[in-house]
């Protein structure tokens, strides 16, 4: 009987513990829509200069490798401004915290790093300050066309570009030489190279792709697709447009044929495979050299960079990744925050960023011969920036991300990922991705594909 009664109490406690998980969900809640108000002061270029002179204290969230050095340099130059630097996590961890702070109505930083793909998600609900009010539109000529477009949502300007990631083809020359493979100029040649390589060495693959939303969208971008269009509340999603089909037409050969490695990116296995020739190429953003130098030491001297293969042999590429710094609406001192952003991505802050191996979005730096003609020891002495800066000028125009791109990316594995897993038609996967995105958009108050 004793056991019996104690058991009941345990049961109550245990059942309660389960229900308490509801609290986890509850934590994220809170009333919203009040975040849009407040801090909506209008200013001008003078207001920014005045705020900088007056000084004050701001908070900055970023995971940029050079962030700490930049903050130090800024405070040395403007001793009356105190910048509290916080690394709130990388990517999704950072966004989750940012989103929660915005929802809660307090606790958000004054300035936050936001990737281009995530910008509409924060800009459209009114969480970010429009920098047009400070006359920042005057800096347009300082940046590449593609990054300048990426910091806009509608007519609003929500940040200054920090870096860019025009895509190029990184390839392992040692592997290519060993199997007599020429550097592919078109995607057809790329597929042929994939077949040749895998036939010669069943353990080697032309590249790895286990399904990655950022890669897929960039590849559709390069193929000229515009699957996402947003106009206020109206969204159109068409992941079966010409560009999307062009990409799946090529990529299906690789996926269905089992010609791409399934090693997921950014894992230890991946870094190892990049070093030992298991993965022979990477079509990816211009920020990759820094990553390879620090994480793929075994690949030193083996890798080279070439322009992205294209569908017709004419130069065309897309952006992959890249970030901006934005001023939050919640900021109590938006003019000072804007001044910091201007310093970071337009003025002296660019230098420490470049020193850390970043790839700039500023045209002056992209033209600077000290940058362009620098030989890279890791890449066998190749002047890789010549290829990469040329790519920055060949980005296909007209691309935009979804206003809920982060959510879209999060369910990519549930939908397109299944096609990758079963090595079947990517079009079917894109279709189910689209269906899920339409449903979600309508639930969130958009009119999707009306």
């Amino acid at each position: 009987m004793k056991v019996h009664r104690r058991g009941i109490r345990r049961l109550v406690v245990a059942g309660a513990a389960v229900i308490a998980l509801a609290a986890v969900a509850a934590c994220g809640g809170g009333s919203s829509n009040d975040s849009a108000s407040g801090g909506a002061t209008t200013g001008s270029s003078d207001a920014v200069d005045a705020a900088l002179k007056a000084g004050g204290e701001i908070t900055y969230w970023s995971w940029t490798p050079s962030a700490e050095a930049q903050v130090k340099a800024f405070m040395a130059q403007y001793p009356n401004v105190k910048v509290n630097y916080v690394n709130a996590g990388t990517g999704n961890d950072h966004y989750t915290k940012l989103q929660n702070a915005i929802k809660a109505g307090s606790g958000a930083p004054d300035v936050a790093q936001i990737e281009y793909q995530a910008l509409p998600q924060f800009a459209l609900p009114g969480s970010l300050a429009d920098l047009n009010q400070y006359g920042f539109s005057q800096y347009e000529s300082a940046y590449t066309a593609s990054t300048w477009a990426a910091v806009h949502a509608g007519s609003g300007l929500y940040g200054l570009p920090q870096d860019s990631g025009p895509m190029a083809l990184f390839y392992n020359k040692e592997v290519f030489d060993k199997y007599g493979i020429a550097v592919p100029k078109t995607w057809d040649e790329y597929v042929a190279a994939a077949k040749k390589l895998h036939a010669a060495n069943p353990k080697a693959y032309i590249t790895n792709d286990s399904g990655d939303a950022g890669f897929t969208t960039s590849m559709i971008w390069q193929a000229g697709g515009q699957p996402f269009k947003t106009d206020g509340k109206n969204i159109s999603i068409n992941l079966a447009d010409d560009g999307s089909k062009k990409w799946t037409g090529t990529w299906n050969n690789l996926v269905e044929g089992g010609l791409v490695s399934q090693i997921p990116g950014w894992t230890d296995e991946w870094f190892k495979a990049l070093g030992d020739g298991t993965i022979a190429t990477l079509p990816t953003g211009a920020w990759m050299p820094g990553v390879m130098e620090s994480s793929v030491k075994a690949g030193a001297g083996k890798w080279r960079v070439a322009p992205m293969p294209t569908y017709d042999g004419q130069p065309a590429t897309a952006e992959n990744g890249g970030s901006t710094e934005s001023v939050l609406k919640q900021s109590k001192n938006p003019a000072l925050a804007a001044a910091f952003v201007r310093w970071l991505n337009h003025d002296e802050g660019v230098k420490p960023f470049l020193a850390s191996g970043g790839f700039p979005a500023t045209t002056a730096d992209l033209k600077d011969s000290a940058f362009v003609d620098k030989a890279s020891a890791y890449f066998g002495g190749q002047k890789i920036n010549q290829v990469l800066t040329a790519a920055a000028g060949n980005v296909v125009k007209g691309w935009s991300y979804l206003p809920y791109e982060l959510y879209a990316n999060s369910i990519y594995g549930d939908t397109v990922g299944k096609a990758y897993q079963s090595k079947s038609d990517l079009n079917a996967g894109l279709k189910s991705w689209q269906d899920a995105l339409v449903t979600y958009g309508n639930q969130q108050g958009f009119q999707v594909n009306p």
Partner: protein
Amino acid sequence: MAESMAHQSAEQVRPVSAAGRRRRRASQDGKGWIFVGPFLAVFALTFLAPIGYAIYLSLYRNQAFFGGKVFVGIDNYTEALQDPKFWEAFGRVAAFLVVQVPIMLILALLAALAIDSARLHASGFFRIVIFLPYAVPGVVAVLMWGYIYGDNFGLAANLNDLFGTTAIQPLSAHWMLPSIANIVTWEFVGYNMLIFYSALRTVPGELYEAAAIDGAGTFRTIRAVKLPALRGAIVIATIFSIIGSFQLFNEPNILRTLAPNVITTYYTPNMYAYNLSFAGQQFNYSATIAIVMGVITAIIAYVVQLRGSRESL
């Protein structure tokens, strides 16, 4: 059961009615509340309030971009009960529960009986070693197993190389759930073993003596003395395991980076609730999923409790 409880408490109260009356008067002074108050305050703040808030959330629908908060009554619940993703996730943890929990508890039971048998040399050493995985933080454990399971460079890859096959793929769609079950078993056998072992230590020595005098052998003693003594502990361990299974989160969530296409955002109910909330900002629906899952878990745990408290196991 409620009936027997009432019966029991009535029995307890009757012979001390005088004392009871005095106690009742004391409670009218409100002194009792001073003692219970701190607990109640914390309980209400950390337990009742979040549940109440989750229930409140589950009755609304909030649009992350346009529109706002709308009262939708039980719409979220209707949606949840018809949501194929939720039921897929539920089916998965249910299958996990049916297979993994018995294996784990039987292993734990055998270990506890072996250590308690006094025939083992260095039983203290075994007790610690079996318990040790429980002391490894769950996240670290899963990362470690991730390396072992890796079929490109991990132990699985080495074994494949050794035998010249590609058959060992612990992270593939077919093997993922057993692979997770293996991790969970490894983690929690020691914990359950300790529950069983401590229950065995409370068996009075006289019972063993009596059994020995009656001519009971080792297995007869296990059946007639040890297992009945373990019944309460087994029921509790089962309930903990049921709850643990339904709350499965850490293991699949961490393995997701290694197998993003195999482990969906709705692989388990908890992962579904988490991703709805933090990736999709669907806090209301997430709260609904969590409540539905909590209620189902409570019901199943309660049924197990009822069955377990009957005379036969």
